[in-house]
């Protein structure tokens, strides 16, 4: 393969690496880390089962930390965010619906950039009860 062509072919790759580097290093922090708008992606959903380690059942929005064992046996802590208590209460959630130590299956939108965050749509409890936050309509 002629060397000149090689140079031409590697340039776009170099450009993209540079753009990606600039984006990752300088652009991302401007989006903020916990915003529903900037932090979650509408393209990716996930269903994860784990054990609840911390609960914040409070307005302005609820938050649960839960430990999930990954495919390779590693324990990962996931950060799940939901709607305000007033919204959830109307759908039958109480402060005792999800407690520390419970095994839950959470379905929701994933955090951007591989962050272990979940924007809750539904939570399935051990006894099969499904708690609805928002359902895709």
């Amino acid at each position: 393969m002629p060397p000149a062509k090689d140079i031409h072919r590697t340039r776009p790759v170099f450009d993209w690496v540079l753009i990606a580097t600039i984006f990752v290093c300088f652009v991302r922090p401007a989006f903020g880390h916990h915003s529903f708008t900037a932090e979650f992606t509408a393209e990716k959903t996930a269903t994860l089962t784990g054990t609840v380690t911390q609960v914040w059942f409070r307005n302005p929005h609820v938050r649960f930390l839960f430990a999930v064992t990954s495919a390779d046996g590693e324990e990962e802590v996931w950060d799940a965010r939901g709607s305000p208590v007033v919204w959830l209460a109307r759908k039958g959630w109480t402060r005792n619906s999800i407690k520390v130590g419970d095994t839950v299956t959470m379905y929701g939108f994933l955090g951007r950039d591989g962050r272990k965050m979940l924007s809750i749509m539904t939570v399935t409890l051990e006894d099969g009860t499904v708690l609805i936050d928002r359902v895709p309509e």
Partner: protein
Amino acid sequence: MVAKLNRYCIAMLLLVMPLSLVAVEADFEGRWMVSLQDQKRTLVGLLELERSGDGWVAYLEGGPATVEIDGNNIVIIADSRDVRGFVFDRRLVGALKDDAMSGSYTQEGAAAQKEAPGPWSAKREVPVTATKKEAKPVDISGMWTATQELDFRKYTMALTPAGKEWLKTYLPYYDQPDVRCTSIGLPALATYSFPFEIIQSEDRYTMIYEYLSKVRRVWMDGRTPSEFMPPSRMGHSNGRWEGSTLIIETTLLDKTVRDFRGELISENARIEERYSLSADGNTLSAVLTVDDPDSYERPPVRRRRWVRNDKTEIFPYTCDPDSFYIPMYEDGEMDMYIERTDRRF
């Protein structure tokens, strides 16, 4: 005589034909009320179509939309955001016939709230007559729960250069008032999807909103606030009945943001709300217009519909900002947050 008549006819044709051609071309121009049918709900919005050079520009609810017009055919693409804040487009494809537009629409882009393709139509807006209508108050007191109807939730609005500049450095979530339990105020509170109660007294309506447990008073006696009244998130509201429409004008507003996206509402903003009741008295509809030339080139319009539900409970809104501050502390973002004090209200 016949020759004279022929000459007259030719002259008239020459005069009228170009005019009629212009008229045909200009048919799309003007203000339209667009109605769009999702599976279970109807969305309504003001569409403004204007000529710009050789082409066209469009605004939906005061925010810019993409428009393509070819003969009698039209394509409008307007962005919106869903309940989770995900941004998507609605693509309206249709045609103009007998001074009305109709066609079909599809949702484009990933969204949490899926919409089925459906029909849309548009009729020319009926201008509000300037003549004062006699007040015919209707009973709007009671508990109201929001429906998913009416608002297109137009995403991009027509910001002024100053408004754009402000938004550039706004950090969604971090700078938003309600995540730290501070009132987001008007206009957001009046159109949120949480229930509210209206109480009627002799000289005022009192509105109690579930979200953030906020209260406002709408004075019907034309009073002005005292010189010591500080500006606030709910401002000073005066109401009047025009026919059976309750019109509320609010001023003396504190600086805030229009919704969680962070577009500014300046201290000079004037908000108009128009409330109307269905014939059976069970459906309340509102159109809210933000007149804030400091921030917007065109006034943003928001709509909301509620149904009467006297069995609804207004839940207490006990707010604890721990779920906001703790993750920020865990991620080492407190210094960044504190440095942004001047960006928050």
